[in-house]
């Protein structure tokens, strides 16, 4: 699809970016943050009950989760989880380090920092947080970042506690590991200002870079997660949850836009058939007895386990379960997803239907079912099975989802699937699920605190990149340098020490990677070490090649000292070294004498590396071996 196509379908997308902050401790308790456990000491079982909302109705999500009646199991490790995370102790005061980082990042977006922070509870009934809500607070609102020739607006930035990691979700039992629970996280919400899937990915990358440029956030698997909101003209805002990498955003948003477009066309088709919310008709029949001899394995198994089999007749729906929604994905998947999540029928397939061409029950059995339930040629019959309660929930849910097709696109959150399509996760929660946290008083952010953070802000990364470009920094180094914690050091090296910008960029960005390959830890290198090395280079104490050697040594000693440097080699000594190397290489048996000069160079370089300019070495070798040949 082209940009014009996306314009035609009215593609709109916004981002919610979650990023873990680099703090020693969690947000509302004093447990260590970032400690992941592979074993657990204890298990806790909880159920989540919806609480009544304003109008005395349960929130949509809440109601759904309650229908699912899940047993939630938390696996906990005593090192990483205390009684706070398990909701057996009220929260402690918010982690000020985390709050400072969040305020700083908000300032990088040009957002307005809130004067007084109010902790809210955001309900989550899926069990991912044992309290049933996430403690969260708005830290700043508004702001924008430059993109192409326009601005992408930031709606708000909030600080919140991270949730549990889901381990499994089978039937009525969902298991979580709690180590990550309670770690400080920020959520950046953008306006729906992105117009194509590629733009979503690009903006996501920019936002991610801004956040990383502070050097105060976690990196690695799971440290950053994106939610993407997508809608098309006439559709509904759909949230795709937990996109694990930016690379996957374009395909997912494309598929979601296609799904919405196709669901709107399905609604038109229903309209043509005269099916509206008012005229929609369906019925449910128990067909357990009729199918008691079925050979189709899933149903045969259900019958042998004394489960129930229900047939749902969708009037005048013939063929529509095969309506294409996403790549290789059909409307029947929308129904099957709901049945899986809401009726807890997690073993697939969980439905079969009469539009399907794949082999299920026999043609005779289909006919018997259709005849018994009174289905006509215009109808579609969907069969579901499970214990009586689940099968009943399933039948109801099939009808709910089929009827929603008359409205178009149901409000829901969707999961990112591996194949780039999206799958139903839960009904979209309303604003009702936010309410004030009565356990913690509001927290004032005095002007003084804001000013201290503001005075420590670095220049925006886009300005850094502009400057790097003018300096001729190679493209592959430019972006990592702009978000590097060494960006300020780079500026100092270039502006104050007069180091060649390309050399400084390479030393700060690429050499640390090389050191890792040399089994050295580049994390040992601090500003003082780098400045020492650059100064030594300026004084001619280290050659260009010697810089990485000096960095390597500094990782071992933990500091940079001139004494650690091997003495530099002058031209006289170089000649002597070359001569001795020549006699050494001559003693070797070379497979191919043409390699003589290459082997010789290697031998000499091993002796002088970092102590003299490499170009000079090659010049001398050529000169001396040339003389020898004569």
């Amino acid at each position, binding site marked *: 699809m082209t940009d014009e196509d996306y314009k035609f379908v009215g593609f709109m997308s916004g981002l919610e970016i979650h990023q873990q902050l680099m703090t020693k401790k969690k947000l509302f308790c004093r447990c260590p943050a970032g400690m992941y456990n592979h074993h657990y000491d204890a298990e806790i079982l909880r159920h989540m009950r919806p*609480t009544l909302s304003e109008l*005395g109705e349960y929130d949509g999500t809440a109601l759904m989760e309650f229908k699912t009646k899940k047993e939630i199991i938390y696996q906990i490790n005593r090192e990483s989880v205390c009684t706070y995370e398990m909701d057996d102790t009220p929260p402690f005061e918010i982690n000020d380090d985390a709050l400072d980082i969040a305020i700083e990042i908000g300032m990088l977006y040009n957002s307005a920092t809130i*004067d007084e922070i109010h902790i809210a509870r955001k309900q989550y009934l899926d069990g991912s947080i044992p309290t049933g809500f996430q403690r969260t607070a708005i830290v700043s609102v508004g702001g924008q970042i430059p993109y192409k020739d326009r601005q992408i607006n930031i709606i708000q930035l909030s600080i919140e506690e991270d949730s549990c990691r889901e381990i499994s979700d089978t039937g009525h039992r969902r298991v979580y590991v709690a180590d990550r629970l309670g770690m400080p996280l920020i959520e950046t919400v953008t306006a729906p200002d992105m117009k194509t899937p590629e733009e979503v990915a690009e903006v996501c990358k920019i936002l991610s870079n801004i956040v990383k440029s502070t050097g105060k956030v976690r990196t690695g698997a799971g440290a950053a997660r994106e939610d993407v909101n997508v809608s098309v003209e006439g559709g509904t805002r759909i949230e795709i949850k937990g996109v694990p990498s930016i690379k996957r955003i374009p395909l997912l948003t494309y598929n979601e836009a296609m799904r919405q477009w196709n669901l709107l066309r399905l609604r038109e088709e229903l309209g043509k058939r005269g099916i509206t919310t008012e005229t929609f008709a369906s019925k449910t029949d128990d067909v357990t007895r009729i199918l008691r001899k079925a050979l189709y394995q899933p149903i045969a198994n259900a019958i042998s386990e004394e489960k129930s089999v229900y047939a749902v007749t969708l009037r005048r729906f013939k063929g529509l379960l095969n309506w294409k929604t996403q790549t290789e994905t059909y409307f029947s998947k929308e129904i099957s997803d709901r049945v899986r999540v809401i009726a807890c029928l997690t073993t697939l397939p969980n439905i079969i239907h009469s539009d399907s061409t794949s082999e299920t029950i026999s043609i005779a059995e289909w006919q018997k079912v259709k005849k018994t339930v009174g289905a006509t040629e215009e109808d579609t019959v969907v069969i579901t099975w499970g214990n009586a309660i689940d099968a009943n929930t399933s039948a109801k849910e099939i009808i709910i989802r089929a009827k929603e097709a008359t409205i178009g696109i149901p409000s829901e959150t969707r999961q990112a699937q591996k194949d780039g399509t999206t799958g139903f996760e839960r009904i979209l929660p309303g604003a009702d*699920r936010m309410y004030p946290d009565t356990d913690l008083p509001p927290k004032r952010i005095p002007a003084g605190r804001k000013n201290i953070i503001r005075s420590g802000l670095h220049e925006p990364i886009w300005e850094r990149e502009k400057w790097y470009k003018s300096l001729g920094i190679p493209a592959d180094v430019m972006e990592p340098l702009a978000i590097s914690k060494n960006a300020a050091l780079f500026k100092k090296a270039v502006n104050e020490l007069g180091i060649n910008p390309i050399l400084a960029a390479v030393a700060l960005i690429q050499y640390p990677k090389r050191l890792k390959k040399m089994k050295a830890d580049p994390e040992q290198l601090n500003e003082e070490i780098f400045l020492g090395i650059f100064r030594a280079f300026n004084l001619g104490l280290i050659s260009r090649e010697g810089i990485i050697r000096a960095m390597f040594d500094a990782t071992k000693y933990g500091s940079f000292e001139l004494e650690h440097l091997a003495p530099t080699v002058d031209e006289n000594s170089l000649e002597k070294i070359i001569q001795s190397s020549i006699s050494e290489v001559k003693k070797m048996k070379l497979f191919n004498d043409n390699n003589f000069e290459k082997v010789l160079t290697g031998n000499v370089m091993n002796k002088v590396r970092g102590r003299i300019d490499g170009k000079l070495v090659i010049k001398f070798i050529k000169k001396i071996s040339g003389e020898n040949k004569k």
Partner: protein
Amino acid sequence: MTNNDLYKGYKGGALETLKKFEALVWCDVEIITGDAMFKGIILPRSETSDHLHIVLKLISGYNIGVAADTVKNIKIFGRKEAHYKIPEKAFPYDPVKPRVKLIGTGGTIASRLDYRTGAVIPAFTPGELYGSVPELADICNLETEKLYGVFSENMGPEQWMGVANAIGKEIEKGVQGIVIGHGTDTMHHTAAALSFMVQDSPVPIVMVGSQRSSDRPSSDAALNLMHSVKTAAESDIAEVLVCMFGPTSDDYGLLHRGTRVRKMHSSYRSTFRTIGDIPVAMVSREKITPLRTDYKKRRTDNNVKINTAFEEMVSIVYYYPNMKPDIVDSLIDNGYKGIVIAGTGLGHVNKPLYPALKRARDNNIAVYMTVQTLWGYVQMYVYDTGRDMMELGVVPTANMLPEVAYVKLGWALGQTSDIEEVKKIMLTPINGEITEREPSNGYLIYQGGIPEVEAFISKHRK
């Protein structure tokens, strides 16, 4: 509506700013400050908060505080005041099911939330309860009565008497069980008081509360309520019981005898423990499993003894090293009639207190010894100091818990002022407040970190 309500909770600079722009609480506004614009609804401000900020509820549902002195302008778009009501659904009546009476004293066993202010609105009528815990209708026909609306710490002799009398009336009317909703902090004091004030009940009297308020999805309230109502409706245990979580998991509840139970953790769900003995039973949504057989059984008559006489001039003295006799002297001088000492070890205090204890005896004040170790017996004859004290008239109370001894002494002094009579009442157990023996599983505080304990914890849900 008073001016106060229009600017509810606002003071000082924040109030002046709101008045300047005629922005009332519940106004839909745009607040413009020096460097930002905020759109939302002005919320009332908590009375305990400062006078510098205006609270705004944003469209996203979040609240923020805007510094009043930065406000340049407030544009008003309308005003809509919120009124909240709990949905009522008629509690279904089933002639086959037992009648259970729920008496409320305070706390929020069931409640709903004012989503805008975070205020918790208690749900209490049968209809309201059915709206939030519909499972109750599967167990019984529920009737409710709100007797008090006080926090746990404000429960005292006056309320204990009121509850005891209300229980008496309900038993006369023939209910099959009684549930008492109560804040958890002093639930064990009230449980002890009811154990003495209401004797030989024909039906279960079950106290219940919650450690996590019922406005949160993970609350223990609904399950506790189901457990307690089931116990009241179906169990054959005609005693005063405390029904709260066994483990912290949503698993089963424990039924603790009202005279042996104590709150042992400031915030855990499984905070109530039977001390020096084992609980009476376990209760889950499916069944009640007795852990002992020596409890008083349910009867079909409507007879009960209500005796609420109570002497309030009783105190607990928690002994500490170097305590000075003036502590005891001041109680004597202030006209106290009974003193319960929580002594160290087997029941000891230091010698300098002796003259004051002698003075107490000479003033006809009843002095009783309990142990601050909670587990174990007062055994004052083991050491000389103990024997000396007994000579000074200090009476050991065996393994009665300090709070229970405090309640019982007040009740005993309510019956008589004859010190010997009081002693007879104190030392004759009414329902397990003194036991002859401590079973070997009556004291179990497993120490975390020990391999076999860790092995146990990893196998059983906490």
